[in-house]
């Protein structure tokens, strides 16, 4: 158990530059904040892609991401309202937002197929990171069963996104 946990934590640190591996047990208000932030990040990336992407599969993928993550985040907002939980900002959310802002700026400098490829590769990596975090950290740490269940649904949706992104990326080579 300890070995598995530390492997998971190590994997997370590698993937996210420690953004998602703070060690301390997360509370439900923090988990809700992280999950929501992760969604907003992908929506922002998608909005940039909708205007910048030239490949039609990449453009369609970006539209799908905006639509799905907005739907999931709306569910998340409805749930925290119902549970009377106030999402709480935390170091993980802050680190995620910072990394995402840097990435968005980096992608913003690219054009044409270079942009398309960088965006879709980042989508593959980003969904992998978020899915690993959900599986190994956020879902196991969530106390409220409804929050846990929403995160589990989110995981299945985002695993679908990861496959979709991989498929689009493979089609561009």
């Amino acid at each position, binding site marked *: 158990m300890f070995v598995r946990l530390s492997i998971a934590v190590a994997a997370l640190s590698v993937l996210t530059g420690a953004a998602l591996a703070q060690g301390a047990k997360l509370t439900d208000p923090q988990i809700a904040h992280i999950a929501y932030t992760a969604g907003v990040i992908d929506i922002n990336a998608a909005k940039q892609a909708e205007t910048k992407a030239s490949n039609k599969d990449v453009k*369609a993928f970006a539209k799908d991401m905006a*639509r*799905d993550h907005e*739907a*999931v985040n709306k569910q998340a907002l409805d749930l925290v309202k119902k549970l009377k939980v106030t999402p709480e900002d935390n170091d993980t959310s802050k680190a995620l937002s910072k990394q995402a802002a840097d990435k968005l700026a980096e992608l913003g400098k690219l054009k044409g197929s270079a942009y398309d490829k960088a965006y879709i590769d980042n989508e593959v990596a980003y969904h992998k990171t978020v899915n690993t975090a959900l599986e190994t950290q956020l879902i196991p740490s969530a106390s409220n069963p409804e929050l846990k269940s929403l995160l589990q*649904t989110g995981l299945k*949706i985002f695993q*679908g996104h990861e496959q979709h992104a991989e*498929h689009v990326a493979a089609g561009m080579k």
Partner: protein
Amino acid sequence: MSPGRYLATLALFALGAMAVPAHAATIQIVMENLVISPAAVSAKVGDTIEWVNKDVLAHTATANNGDFDVTIAPKKTARSVLTKAGTVDYYCRFHPNMKAVLTVAP
């Protein structure tokens, strides 16, 4: 019209309405957590497919050969009547990894 005849007409109408679905089946295909189940369905021309979307996301059932393209809003059910025989591979345009097959007998 006397009340008696009115009722009789209604009863006849109801019988007539019931006679149609007796020949055609309604088959449910569920989309949940980005999975279509059952992944393979056999039906007949005239049958109705009930597309049940249990996700909070919109889905489509889009035939590869262009036979149908149904959009199913989140948490909604859409219906389509099968009019053409054949084996049709279909997928969700928004989530292309959702794939299934529908075999329609004449």
